[in-house]
């Protein structure tokens, strides 16, 4: 038996491929949009995941340090260290600043941490060159996307910092690049003012700032202890707010990126619906384009099954090629986006199934219409 779908595709191969690629690009855009949403959620949790802390101690009555501003004294870490179930504690600061180099302007989050602490703040899997900070001053670990090189000197505030390490894919909850400096340097950057500001403050009777503030105390818990119970105990003992790692991630998702992610999510859903409609219309039009051939086939006695099989086979193949080209397109352009795009094959596969079902329905609707057409129209009667 002759495979009509194969013959038809072979006959108009370039047209078929161009259509498949066009549909694929549309699919690719949807896949990227889903990736943007996934990337936003991934980034939101990335920093908290990277920092190997089990609990976060922040200013009382705040949702700090990400969802809300938080300031606590650095020496709080000593008090936390002595709490039951605590393995180690360390202070940490976060500050977002705008930077500029020959590659342009970009926003970075400066993470200040104690290089002598036992708690890993830099995810070693993401350190692709150099080392972590091992001095208390003037060393910095940067993100690869800032384009700084190992050994390069960067001016931050009033001081110069030497690049000792480079990370990849280290971003803040907002997707900004991360830079790591020592806690002391970070405190200087965040809490020490310029001479002019100090003079101005003094003339107002304000005595110098306190450089020994941090945004949070992070702590690791000994094996066998329940993080939630330890957190509750610390809250009672220190009058601070304490979040477990999971609570901190939930805060980020629910408070920090909720509206943005919902916005992207809604946009993605709309884009999926529009794409389904467009792809279904393309398939429907492709089917109607064959109305003359199908009418002739019908008239000479070819069964509906054979005709439907041809159309559905072409639709499935078109969908499959579009799926492949869409994924290739998405992966090719993925790196060009300034923020993280998380492409998961499962998303693409689910999208493929949805689009395929819609396309088959569209082609069946087209077939129904063609089959219902009076065949005499095809022969000009």
């Amino acid at each position, binding site marked *: 038996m*002759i495979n009509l779908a194969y*013959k038809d595709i072979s006959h108009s191969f370039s047209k078929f491929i161009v259509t498949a690629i066009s549909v694929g690009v549309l699919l690719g855009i949807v896949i990227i949009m889903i990736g943007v949403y996934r990337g936003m959620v991934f980034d939101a949790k990335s920093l908290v995941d990277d920092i190997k802390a089990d609990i976060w101690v922040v200013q009382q009555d705040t949702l700090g340090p990400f969802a809300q501003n938080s300031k606590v004294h650095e020496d709080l870490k000593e008090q936390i260290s002595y709490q039951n179930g605590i393995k180690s504690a360390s202070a940490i600061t976060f500050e977002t600043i705008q930077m500029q180099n020959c590659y342009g302007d970009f926003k970075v989050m400066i993470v200040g941490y104690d290089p002598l602490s036992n708690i890993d703040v830099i995810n070693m899997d993401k350190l692709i060159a150099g080392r972590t900070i091992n001095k208390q001053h003037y060393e910095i670990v940067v993100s690869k996307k800032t384009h700084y090189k190992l050994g390069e000197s960067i001016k931050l505030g009033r001081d110069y910092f030497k690049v000792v390490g480079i990370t990849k894919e280290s971003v803040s909850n907002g997707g900004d690049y991360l830079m790591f400096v020592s806690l002391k340097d970070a405190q200087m950057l965040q809490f020490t003012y310029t001479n002019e500001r100090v003079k101005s403050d003094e003339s107002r009777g304000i005595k110098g700032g306190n450089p020994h503030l941090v945004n949070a105390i992070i702590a690791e818990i000994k094996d066998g202890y329940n993080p939630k119970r330890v957190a509750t105990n610390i809250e009672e003992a220190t009058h601070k707010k304490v979040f477990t790692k999971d609570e901190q991630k939930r805060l980020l998702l629910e408070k920090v990126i909720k509206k943005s992610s919902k916005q992207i999510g809604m946009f993605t859903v709309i884009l999926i619906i529009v794409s389904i409609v467009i792809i279904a219309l393309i398939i429907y039009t492709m089917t109607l384009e064959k109305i003359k*051939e199908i009418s002739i086939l019908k008239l000479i006695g070819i069964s509906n099954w054979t005709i439907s099989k041809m159309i559905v086979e072409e639709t499935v193949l078109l969908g499959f090629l579009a799926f492949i080209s869409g994924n290739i397109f998405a992966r090719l352009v993925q790196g060009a986006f300034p923020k993280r795009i998380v492409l998961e094959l499962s998303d693409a596969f689910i999208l493929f199934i949805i689009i395929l079902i819609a396309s088959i329905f569209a082609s069946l609707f087209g077939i129904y219409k063609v089959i219902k057409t009076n065949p005499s129209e095809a022969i*000009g009667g």
Partner: protein
Amino acid sequence: MDKNAIKVENLVKSFGEADSEVVVIDGANFSLSKGEFVALIAPSGSGKTTLLMMLGCALEPTSGKIVIGDRIVYDNKWKIKDDRALRRKKIGFIFQSHYLIPFLNIEENISLLPYQNGEKPKVVKQRVKEILDYLDMGDKLYNMPSELSGGQNQRIAIARALANKPDIILADEPTAALDQKRAVSVVKMLKKITREQDVTIIMVTHDERLLPYCDKVLTIKDKKILVEENSDEHII
């Protein structure tokens, strides 16, 4: 020529209902024998194609009776379950334009119907070759329709109509797109087929110069069918 090929009794076809009803064929009666070459003539819009479609079981009549061979296919309602199966086994079609499937080569265009009838590839290939040789197109087996002229494609369309060994071929103005010389050539070929293959051909035509080649002429006049037999001395 005494075996019945097609018989029509009181065949009526109307479109629309009540006040908007338009009767196209009003009580057609005729009978055609196997191996007859019949012309169907009428002015444009008088129902030639409608009649052809009803005879091909592709359009449901309003009332009447159609018998193909010894089988009643319509008697005020369809008496067959699968009209396509009947068409692909008993009826061949030739259209104004060749209407070959553009994405199939000549061999595939012709063999499509026998394959659909479940015939074996070896048998089908042999028959396609025989038919093409019969029509002097044996060297065009693997050409695409776009590579052939209009006249050659119309011959291939005839070959396709013959591929399922039909009892009846319904030809709707098969010479309309051809010049006079090629039209005569096609009509002669159709006549040869009726004689040698024992097939009844009903050919719609506007060209009265082709009528002498036919055994009978059916004329639609005032929604009725007039049957006129060509006398032997007038048949070319």
